[in-house]
C-alpha cells in the first residue's frame, strides 16, 4: 500500500478574470481519512472542489491523486467526466443535484453507468439481451439495494427522487456518489439544511464509509458539530489562501482561525468553535 496521501494539492491557483478565488493553496488528504475543508463564506472552498472534480480548469498548480496501487493521476489535466470515470473521484453538490424525475433506485443505477456500459457491450450486446449483461445488471441492482439499505431508504427505492424529503435527498446523493465506487469522495456541505438528528445520522454514515469501505473523504462543511466530530484533519481557508491546518483540536484552538473565520467578534467565534466539541 502506498504511504502517500490520496490527494495532494500543490500551489493551486484559480483566477476568474481579475479575481483570485484561490491562491497557491497546498494541502493533502490522507488515505482512508476524512479531511475537512472549512472557512467562511466566499473563502474559495467550492472553487477548490470544482478544480479537483474537473468542473473548473485551474489557472495554476497541480492536483495529484494517488491510487492504492501507487498509480498517480494529474487531475488538472483531465476534464469533467474523466475525473469521475478514470480517477475515481466522486462528488456531491452544495444544492442537491439528483435526477428528480427518476426513482431513487434509478439514480443509483445511473451512477453505475460506466460499469454497466461495458457489460452491455456498449449497448449492442445489451440490446440483444446477452446473459452476461443481465448478470451485471443484477449485480448493479444489488449494489444499489445495499446502498439504499445503508441510507435507510430501501422502502422508498421506487419513489421519485424529487419526492423524497430534503434529508433523504442529501443521503441519496451521497449513496449515488458511492455507487460509482470512488477512491475519493468529495462532499460539498452535506449537512446543509439538516436538523440535528439528521446531522448525527450523516456523521454516522460518513464514518461508516471511512471505516468499513476505506474510502477517503474530502468534505466542505459549515456545521462545526459534524466537522469536529468526524474529521481526522482540517484545512482552514480564508480569502483563497490556507490559514491553518491540523487536527480538530489544533484548529479549534488556533487564534488565527478564530479571528479570521469568525471575524472580530471573538466571543461568538469561541462559542461556535466550542459548539463542535
Amino acid at each position, binding site marked *: 500500500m502506498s504511504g502517500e496521501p490520496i490527494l495532494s494539492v500543490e500551489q493551486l491557483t484559480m483566477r476568474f478574470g481579475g479575481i483570485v478565488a484561490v491562491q497557491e493553496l497546498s494541502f493533502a488528504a490522507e488515505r482512508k481519512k476524512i479531511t475537512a475543508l472549512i472557512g467562511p463564506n466566499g473563502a474559495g472552498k*467550492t472553487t477548490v472542489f*470544482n478544480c479537483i472534480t474537473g*468542473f473548473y480548469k485551474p489557472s495554476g498548480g497541480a492536483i495529484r491523486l494517488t491510487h492504492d496501487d501507487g498509480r498517480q493521476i494529474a487531475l488538472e489535466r483531465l476534464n469533467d467526466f474523466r475525473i469521475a470515470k478514470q480517477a475515481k473521484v466522486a462528488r456531491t*453538490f452544495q444544492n442537491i443535484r439528483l435526477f428528480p424525475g427518476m426513482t431513487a433506485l434509478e439514480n443509483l443505477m445511473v451512477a453505475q453507468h460506466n460499469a454497466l456500459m461495458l457489460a452491455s457491450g456498449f449497448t449492442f450486446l445489451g440490446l440483444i439481451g446477452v446473459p452476461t449483461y443481465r448478470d451485471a445488471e443484477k449485480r448493479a441492482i444489488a449494489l444499489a439495494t445495499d446502498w439504499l439499505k445503508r441510507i435507510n431508504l430501501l422502502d422508498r427505492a421506487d419513489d421519485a427522487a424529487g419526492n423524497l424529503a430534503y434529508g433523504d435527498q442529501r443521503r441519496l446523493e451521497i449513496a449515488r456518489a458511492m455507487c460509482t465506487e470512488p477512491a475519493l469522495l468529495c462532499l460539498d456541505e452535506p449537512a446543509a439544511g439538516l436538523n440535528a438528528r439528521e446531522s448525527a445520522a450523516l456523521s454516522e454514515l460518513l464514518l461508516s464509509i471511512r471505516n468499513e469501505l476505506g474510502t477517503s473523504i474530502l468534505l466542505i462543511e459549515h456545521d462545526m458539530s459534524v466537522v469536529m466530530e468526524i474529521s481526522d484533519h482540517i484545512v482552514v481557508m480564508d480569502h483563497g489562501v490556507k490559514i491553518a491546518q491540523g487536527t480538530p483540536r489544533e484548529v479549534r484552538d488556533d487564534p488565527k482561525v478564530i479571528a479570521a473565520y469568525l471575524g472580530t467578534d471573538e466571543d461568538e467565534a469561541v462559542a461556535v468553535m466550542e459548539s463542535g466539541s
Partner: protein
Amino acid sequence: MDYFTQQLINGLVLGSIYGLIAIGYTMVYGIVGMINFAHGDIFMIGGFIALITFLILISLGLTAIPVILLVVLLVSMAITALYGWTIERIAYRPLRHSFRLAPMLSAIGMSFVLTNYSQIAQGARVKPIPPLITGGYTLHESADGFVIRLSNVQILVVITTIVLLAIFTWLVSRTRLGRDMRACEQDQTMAALLGVDVDRTISMTFVIGAALAAVAGLMYLLYYGLVDFFMGFVAGIKAFTAAVLGGIGSLPGAMLGGLAIGLIETFWSAYFSVEYKDVAAFSILIVVLIFMPTGLLGRPEVEKV
C-alpha cells in the same frame, strides 16, 4: 470596389429590416424566455395592414406622400401591436409558468393560424403595389459605367431604423416601462413583489415588439413593393437567426445580428450564388455558435455548480 459598395448598401438596408424584426424576438425572449414563433407572421400582418391602408388612402385621393407614409406607419403599428397583444393574451399568458416547450408549440400553432388567416382573408396571390417613393442619388459612376445608387427608399429604411432604435433605446434605458421590463427580465417574482405589474409589462413587450415588426413590414413593402401571406416564415426564421447570432436577449445584439445576416445574404448572392444565400446565412450561424455558444453579444452562460 463599386460593386462592393453597392452590395454593402443593399446588405445594410436588408439587415435593418431583419434587425427590426429580430428585436421583437429578442425582447420577448429576454422577458418571457420563449421563442415567439408567430413573430414572423406578425411582421407579415404588419405588411398587409400597411398595404391595405395605402390602398384606402390613395383611393381617397390623398397625394402627399409624407402624410400617407405617416398615416400608414401609425395605423399599421397600432393594429399590428393589437395583434401582438391579443396573441400574448390568448396563446401565451395561460402557459406563462408552464413546461417550457408548451408556449413554443403554442406559438408554432399561432404562426400557422396567422399564415392561414391571412391567406384566407387576402388570398394566396402576391400583392404588388406601385413604387411610392421613387428616385435616389447616384453616388459614384465608374469608368466602365457601373453606377452606385442609393435610392430614397433605402435612405428611408435606414433612417427609420436608426430613429426607431434611438427611441427604443431611450424607452428601455430611461423610462419607467423600460425599468420594469429590465426588472422582469432579471426576476419576475421579485419584480412583482416590488410592485411591478408583470402582466402589463409583458403585454407591453409584445406590443412594442409587434409595432417594430409592423414598421419592418412597411419597410419591406416599400422596398420590395409586394407582400404575400407566406413571407412571414422566411423573414421570421432569418430574423430569429439574427437574434440568436447577435446573442438572444441582447438588444444591440439583435440589430448587429440583423445587419450581419443581411450582409452575408447580400454578399453571398452577389459573389457566389443566389440559390445558396440562405444556406450561407444558416451555416455561418452554426459556425459562430460553435465558437461562441451564446452568440456575438450574448452574455456567456456561467455554469453554476
